[in-house]
């Protein structure tokens, strides 16, 4: 999930983030904090007033912001059900003869970010047909 972050964050910065919790949480690094303590640590970084070294604060906030962006982007892009299988030309691989090309990668195997957000990425053919019928009923079908 953190692939792609490494260009923006160095190992040293990640280490600093892990270590900087020690003074506030009985010498425990971030990875050993409980869930409640992690929340407290992140809030402390967002608030910033308790971290007196401005350089350290910049690093902590940078790690937090970039990680937050990355985690939410990946998770709410439907990870791990986010991939449409494609051929070498980047064209979605479809069942033979499929004209409608419904390539919704969401499955019901597990709960993903899309399920939580109730995000509908693509209509099924039946849903499309319902919508066409609706557009006709509403007088919004302008041409055959």
């Amino acid at each position, binding site marked *: 999930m953190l692939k792609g972050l490494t260009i923006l964050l160095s190992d040293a910065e990640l280490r600093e983030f892990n270590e900087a919790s020690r003074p506030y949480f009985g010498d425990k690094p971030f990875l050993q904090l409980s869930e409640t303590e992690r929340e407290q640590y*992140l809030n402390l970084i967002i608030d910033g007033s308790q971290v007196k070294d401005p350089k350290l604060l910049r690093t902590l906030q940078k790690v937090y912001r970039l990680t937050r962006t990355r985690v939410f982007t990946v998770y*709410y892009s439907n990870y791990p059900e986010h991939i449409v299988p494609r051929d070498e030309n980047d064209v979605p691989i479809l069942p033979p003869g499929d004209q409608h090309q419904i390539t919704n990668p969401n499955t019901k195997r597990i709960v993903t970010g899309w399920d939580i957000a109730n995000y*509908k990425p693509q209509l099924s053919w039946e849903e499309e047909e319902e919508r066409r019928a609706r557009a006709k009923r509403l007088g919004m079908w*302008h041409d055959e």
Partner: protein
Amino acid sequence: MLREKMYDVIVVGAGFSGSIVGTKIAQKGVNPSSGERLKVAMIDGGPYFKGKPKWGYGIPSRRQMFTHIPQDMRQGDRAGRVVEGYTFKGVGGGSVQWGAKGHPPDDKDYEWWARETGVDWTKENMKEAVREFLHMFNSHTIPDNLLHEYHLRFRDVARSMGYKPEKMLVHKKNCIMCGTHAEFQPQCRYDAKTSTLLTYIPIAEENGVEILPNTKVEQVIIGKKGTQWVATGIWYREKGELVQKAEAKKIIVACENFGTPLLLYASGYGPKDLLGDKLIVENPNVGSHIDGHPASMGGVSARFEDIVVHEPGDGNYGFWFLDDKDSQGSDRLFMLSGAETHPSSFWGAHTYALSYWAPEFGHKHKDWMRNNWKVWRHISGGSFYGPMVAYSHWSAPKARLLPDRSFQFDHEHPTIKKRQKECRDLLWAVFEKMGAKEVRDDPAEPVRRTIASPAGLRHDVGSCRAGEDPKNSVINANFECHDIANLFIVDSSTHPRATSLWSGGAVVATVGIFAADRIIAKHFSRSQM
């Protein structure tokens, strides 16, 4: 590969305007001496998703390419294939990607164009072009009963504040209201959003136009006949192939407001100070006078608890109203109600997860994603009238595009700052009156970065503007280059000022139709003999 290397007409850039102009010339134009049909090539640097339109359904090639999963198209590797930078580079150009909303020229546009450079692009002269645009793009408004409560409240509040709200014009056919219609979304999976891929280009195919996708034009060839500079052909490069030459009697450039001056610079046409010893023909106006709508203009978002969007909408915009400083429409603010769509489908769930309304992290964030985020709307309000904000206060160097593509727009100019503030206060008041639970300022910088062109402008125009006087323009009102015979420019770069309503493509298309009619009348009709 170009099958024949000699054409009557080569259109460089088969985008919004280029594809209209190329199609019309092939359909209606003839060789003035022989009356024969013309050999027309339309060339574009990007791909071509070919096929007759199937309105409301889509066809396999386009359904396959445009799977309407936003992040799928936006992933770096895929997006790079189809969408370069902020506009669609490919046959159809910006019309493939536009929001399909907006108005043809407003009365104020005709007035400002004439005032600016003296062109006779009057309401009367453009009447036919406007009619054709509205017909070809199936322009219409959405009936009240299909507009969301939010828009109706916006309209009513605007009226109560003394403004005259109007309905946004949309350009679609057989929209199934899937909820995913949005700007930045390449083509519509269902062939409902009108693009030139669906309107003019099929006619080009029927009329034998040779359409060359994935072919980048490197230079227009400029030669000399006696004392006159003449465009004689192009150097182009097909994917992975060497530079090749094609000749034509007329070259029509339509590479958009940035692409056109860049191509002309590469061809040796432009300002001396920029081109140095690469200069062949001098015109200091190439790449200058760039105007547009500043991208971040007092943006405000509102959250409503009593307006919940349950149903995907039609993806278009509701109402707009104008706030002018005087009867000339100076420093105009164009206030737009926002997009009618299901928020979950507009930008993709992850953009909501990262929105500044969302809690920072943890269960609160998850709960918000599960419940609350569905009730806030992004309000795309507060765009404005570029011409009055920008030009007279805009010092020349800042308005220039340089050959290295760098460009700067003075967003900090006092007039813009002042109107930004007024715009923000006005929107804030509107939302409060509409009963918003919460109103917030949009962070300006991210908005500018996501929506605007590199210049920080939308609907940018003017880099090769039309005018009566070669001292302040590049082409004349008939789209003929002042300095180089047989060279025409027909795209957004030709407009003397930015449009005064929310439109780029709608005006580009109208001017393109108008350009084609003028070029045909003057160069490709028998009556010329």
